[in-house]
């Protein structure tokens, strides 16, 4: 099967990016070095093509009550122009996907979902919408998306922004022109740093990309691939669907209780309430590994040799220089400071439960 391409595919290849198959999309994993790209975002600014992300529009009289039922977070409590992060659950409270919900108005909610889940999500959302007065449309092909991230993002982007960026609060958005191109501009990101995400017509993607690189040049901007995107989100402990969360885990187990609004009804609520009352059998925790690197799927054991969980994500943190991981750990092993053992290449290596997030950057809020 042919890989899907973003409108910037040719541009990435011109820049010499290393391209990989990411969930059916041909995407840049790195341009020069993951570590250099990571550092640029932490210290200055980096630019990411995230046009593979899916955009699903929910429009109609029941848009707000429908999305409130669809996801665990609440759009009825958002103001127009505000955004929430939320898991979207099945009836059994495991996770269909995690997404951002942009509230345009009472009758218009824009959902941004993971690329490789877009078709599955669209089918699921359409099925759930029966009985609600809404129209659900997959607009993914109509948007290019660029993430402009780093402590210098606002300062640089202001040079070509027709909208006043300083007025956009964290997890808020507006529409207007950037580089003369009509955009949705949100103060969001997946890096732990301050920054913006721009959604706009794919035909303008190359012009926008080149302009952003040009104005970022005095700041030594780096084009960043999926490799740096992953290490940055990992340090900030943002969930990666398919690694840290999936259709076998629940938002409570993943530590996403802060996203759940138990005041309203939503798909999966009964199971989550039960989990909350009975207590969790496992939780996602941070680990510092004493030697080696723990990767997705590696098993975790207790001191007395009992299998107590598994690693969901892990690498050597570029910012902190430590070998870190996220892992689901059984009840009784989740307290800070608990020593556990990760099986790495056949050897059991000591690790300690540490607090998350591993790193807080310039992002305007902790959540």
């Amino acid at each position, binding site marked *: 099967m042919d890989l899907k391409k973003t409108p910037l595919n040719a541009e990435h290849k011109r820049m010499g990016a*290393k391209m990989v198959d990411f969930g059916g999309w041909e995407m840049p*994993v*790195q341009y020069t*070095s*993951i*570590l250099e790209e990571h550092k640029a975002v932490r210290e200055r600014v980096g630019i990411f093509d995230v046009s593979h992300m899916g955009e699903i529009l929910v429009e109609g009289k029941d848009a707000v009550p429908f999305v409130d039922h669809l996801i665990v977070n609440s759009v009825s409590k958002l103001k127009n122009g505000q955004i929430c992060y939320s898991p979207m659950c099945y009836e059994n409270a495991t996770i269909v996907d995690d997404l951002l919900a942009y509230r345009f108005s009472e009758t218009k909610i824009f959902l941004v979902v993971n690329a490789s889940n877009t078709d599955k999500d669209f089918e699921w959302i359409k099925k759930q919408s029966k009985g609600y007065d809404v129209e659900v449309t997959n607009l993914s092909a109509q948007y290019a998306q660029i993430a402009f991230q780093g402590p210098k993002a606002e300062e640089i982007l202001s040079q070509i922004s027709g909208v006043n960026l300083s007025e956009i609060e964290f997890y808020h958005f507006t529409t207007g022109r950037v580089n003369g191109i009509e955009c949705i501009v949100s103060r969001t990101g997946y890096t732990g740093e301050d920054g913006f995400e721009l959604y706009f017509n794919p035909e303008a993607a190359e012009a926008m990309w080149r302009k952003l690189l040009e104005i970022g040049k005095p700041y030594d901007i780096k084009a960043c691939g999926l*490799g740096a995107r*992953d*290490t940055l989100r990992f340090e900030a402990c943002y969930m990666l669907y398919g690694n840290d969360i999936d259709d076998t885990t629940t938002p409570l187990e993943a530590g996403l209780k802060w996203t759940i609004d138990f005041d309203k009804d939503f798909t999966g609520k009964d199971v989550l309430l039960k989990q909350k009352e009975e207590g969790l059998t496992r939780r996602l925790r941070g680990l510092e590994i004493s030697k*080696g*690197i723990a*990767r997705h799927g590696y098993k975790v054991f207790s001191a007395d040799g009992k299998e107590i969980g598994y690693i969901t994500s892990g*690498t*050597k943190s*570029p910012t902190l220089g430590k*070998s870190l991981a996220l892992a689901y750990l059984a009840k009784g092993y989740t307290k800070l400071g608990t020593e556990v053992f990760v099986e790495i*290449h056949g050897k059991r290596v000591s690790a300690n439960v540490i607090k998350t997030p591993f790193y807080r950057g310039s992002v305007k809020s902790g959540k």
Partner: protein
Amino acid sequence: MKKYTESHEWVELDGKVATVGISDHAQNELGDIVYVELPEVGKEVKAGETLCSVESVKSASDVYAPVSGKVVEVNEELENAPETINKSAEKDGWIAKIEVSDPSEMDKLLSEDEYKKKIAE
């Protein structure tokens, strides 16, 4: 003379001791190397068996022994500076020295020209 394996290791024999590392092409494919799990000195390996592993930001990759023998020395510098492999894969970034049990195994490996042809494919 320096030889290469199909699995992208290089090996250079000096007397009975072979110095082993991963090729410059391999380090370039892996990207930033952040950890090297060195073999233990004294470990006996057979040609084609896993010698140790190198880890990039994104993944772990096995390094295979190009020749059979006993590990007599490892490059401990790599514990603190794994990025040496990115900077100098075929010199300062050597991984281990193996006292070879059968020097004729070297004959089965690729010459530099053969390896270059292979990676250009």
